[in-house]
């Protein structure tokens, strides 16, 4: 099934994505990040091959935008350093590694270890709950370890 008309996708996810960005960035910076998130989604939307996992997809874009927003130098705030030790952002490596996982585990692993979301947010992104998100992330990690060692 192809993705729904963008309007329906936007109506369904705008409130929770905005809430998520407010929690990550505070309400002032969340407004710009909100617009950026959905403009990015709009640019990528025609390339989607199906309409599944759109919520997790939206959260992934929002997480990436939130990280970029964090990196932007601002005079009025000291922000935590989010890059990994070798200078590459953690999520860039993880997204590639996690490509082979089933979609739910992949989203859980990337959002947890790449973007540092807590399990409540990941549960929301997956349309389930914190417990299910924790399970998906840990079984994803187990699967990655197995792949690594084989």
């Amino acid at each position, binding site marked *: 099934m192809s993705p*729904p*008309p*963008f*309007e*329906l996708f936007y109506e369904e996810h705008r409130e929770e994505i905005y809430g998520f960005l407010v929690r990550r960035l505070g309400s002032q910076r969340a*407004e710009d990040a*909100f617009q950026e998130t959905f403009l990015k989604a709009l640019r990528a939307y025609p390339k989607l091959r199906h309409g599944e996992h759109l919520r997790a997809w939206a959260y992934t874009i929002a997480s990436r935008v939130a990280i970029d927003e964090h990196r932007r130098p601002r005079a009025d705030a000291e922000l935590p350093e989010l890059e990994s030790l070798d200078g590459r952002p953690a999520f860039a490596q993880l997204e590639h590694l996690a490509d082979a996982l089933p979609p739910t585990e992949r989203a859980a692993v990337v959002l947890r270890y790449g973007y540092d979301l807590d399990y409540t947010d990941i549960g929301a992104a997956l349309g389930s709950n914190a417990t299910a998100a924790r399970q998906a992330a840990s079984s994803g990690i187990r699967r990655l370890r197995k792949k690594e060692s084989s």
Partner: protein
Amino acid sequence: MNPVSPELDRRFRDAAASENLLDVAYDFVDTPVGSLLVATSERGLCRISYDAEPERELERLARTFGVRVLRSPKPVDEARRELDEYFEGNRRRFDLRLDLALLADFNRRVLDELARVPYGEVVTYGELAARSERPRAARAVGTVMNRNPLPIVLPCHRVIGANGKLVGYGGGLERKEQLLRLEGAIL
């Protein structure tokens, strides 16, 4: 919970249109014949719909023009203004760009002829068929009228039966009568 403010929502919808990211922008336009869903592609006006069930109409637009369908008022403003003027009796023809690129040749030819039927005049299905160089295709012309993607702007309300009866209208006969009365074609 912080709801998305109307200003923020509007800002996104405006930005999506001004950055040319939409396959179709649409909005609702209030008129004396009801609320119309009016949609425009980058090529021009592409749909006017009576009594739209939004979800179904959006699916249809997405299938025809592409999935980036978003409610965004600005791109529809020109059509809104011309429709307002028409219903106020201050406009007799529309100057909007129309997107008929995806229609079959016959449909487009018939609609081109239809666009030439002047304000306040009527024509029969058979006559319109003849003008479209298919004199025996009155019934097919009826089907094209029924599927007219741009009612009002492409005036299928001006097409009537050979016996002078109004026959049919995609938006319902009551509206056909209302439009013809507005134009002074019937009393």
